[in-house]
């Protein structure tokens, strides 16, 4: 029997679908003869008492989840997500640089420092990437700090705001599509596949409603992993291999029959009735990975 701790925060239980998925993890672990306990930031000192740690709270090197992951890692406890994956996936510049090094196709990107805000430099960026461009702060999740602009004024305004968060940011070619592919990949094998649709009149899957602190999300359509195009799987797996081993959610865009990586996420969302809709074994496979690691 393996004692598995699942590191969560209160917000993980706010959405019914996410709470159900967490309960699914627990019941599958129990069926397999393991113990599965939810722990929070209050229980960090107890992490060394477990055999494995599964992180479901939002990961970022500046969040508590990183401390939890690092405590497990330093104590040689199996952990998803491991600190290295958190560190790479949290910083988009680091992630894209590794994709580039491994020859994985990804959305054309430029990395900007504060001296890129001259009129001349901005014009060069638009010339290279086309108008509009997408600007991303490196430390983002849930589509936050990802904005689109087609004017030099807007470019400068967004960049100045993002530079408060980081000395470097990303400018990307805008590639409009009806949906983004999301591949859930565990240990270089496809776990699930989804199409994350872009809401009508918007340009990204998750968009904040103007003037409100609420997000609108496009619908999710799950595809059996066996029915996904070979090339999609190939690009998705190669993206994960460039980052590390573990559980990742790879976002890809289909362009002229080929696939470009938008980003690789550690700690991918798993909601009951969405990611698990077609391939029901995802809970079992994640638990087994943790147990065997």
């Amino acid at each position, binding site marked *: 029997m393996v004692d598995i701790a699942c590191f969560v925060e209160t917000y993980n239980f706010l959405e019914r679908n996410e709470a159900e998925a967490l309960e699914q993890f627990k019941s599958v672990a129990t069926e397999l003869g393991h113990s599965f306990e939810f722990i929070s930031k209050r229980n960090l000192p107890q992490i060394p008492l477990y055999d494995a740690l599964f992180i479901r709270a939002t990961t970022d090197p500046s969040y508590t989840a990183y*401390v939890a992951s*690092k405590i497990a890692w330093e104590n040689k406890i199996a952990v998803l997500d491991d600190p290295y994956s958190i*560190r790479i996936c949290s910083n988009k510049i680091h992630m894209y640089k590794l994709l580039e090094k491994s020859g994985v196709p990804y959305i054309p990107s430029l990395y900007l420092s504060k001296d890129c805000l001259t009129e001349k430099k901005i014009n060069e960026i638009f010339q290279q990437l086309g108008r509009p461009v997408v600007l991303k702060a490196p430390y983002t999740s849930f589509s936050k700090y990802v904005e689109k602009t087609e004017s030099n004024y807007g470019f400068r305004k967004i960049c100045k705001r993002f530079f408060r968060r980081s*000395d470097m940011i990303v400018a990307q070619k805008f590639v409009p599509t009806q949906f983004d592919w999301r591949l859930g990949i565990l240990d270089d094998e496809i776990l699930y596949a989804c199409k994350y649709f872009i809401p009508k009149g918007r340009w990204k899957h998750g968009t904040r409603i103007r003037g409100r602190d609420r997000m609108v999300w496009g619908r999710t359509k799950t595809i059996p992993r066996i029915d996904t195009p070979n090339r999609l799987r190939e690009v998705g797996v190669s993206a994960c291999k460039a980052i590390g081993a573990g559980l990742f959610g790879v976002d890809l865009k289909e362009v002229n029959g080929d696939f470009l990586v938008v980003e690789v996420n550690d700690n991918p969302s798993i909601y009951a009735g969405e990611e698990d809709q077609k391939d029901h074994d995802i809970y079992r496979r994640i638990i087994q990975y943790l147990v065997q690691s």
Partner: protein
Amino acid sequence: MKIGYYVSMHAEIMGNAVIPTCQDILDAYKTPILLLRAMKRGMCISPHIVSDNVKDIEFEIDLPMLIFPLNPFSNGGYKVVHSEGSLYRAVRSLGMNGKYPVCAEYLLGSLETTRSLFGNGENPLLQDLAKEVYAEFRLPVFQLLAQIVEGQPYLCNVMPVHPEELTASDLKILSKRVEDAERQFG
């Protein structure tokens, strides 16, 4: 993230030797991770607990104690608490009203600090500890906080040194090291 982090990142990706590494930068400034790695290396560290709960902290650690934040907006600050009331206020403010835990450490001795440049501290009491911390994390410049208990320094925390805090002689030492490295590696 500051530009220095991206320089380390770029060097790592290119396969070049670099100090500090991205991992060491992140780990050294997260108090519980710093203490965990320091302990594994055999350094003396202050007994501590990570929690967001005042009762749990009080159960494990006696007053007075040191409280270090783990919130992403902190900038190396900490609080010394001597009473239950100040503990409650420190946990609330540094933990941003319960959103983040804090790291509480026993305060058993006198606090000492030193600024380290390549492991050389200006405080003779912390000279060896600064060398040990530098050997583990390879941070060229850092501020070290420790407490002296019965003549023995116990590591409490490591904090960044901001460029404007560097003196002319610090800059001279740094320039010399960079020049030496350039000569060595071309």
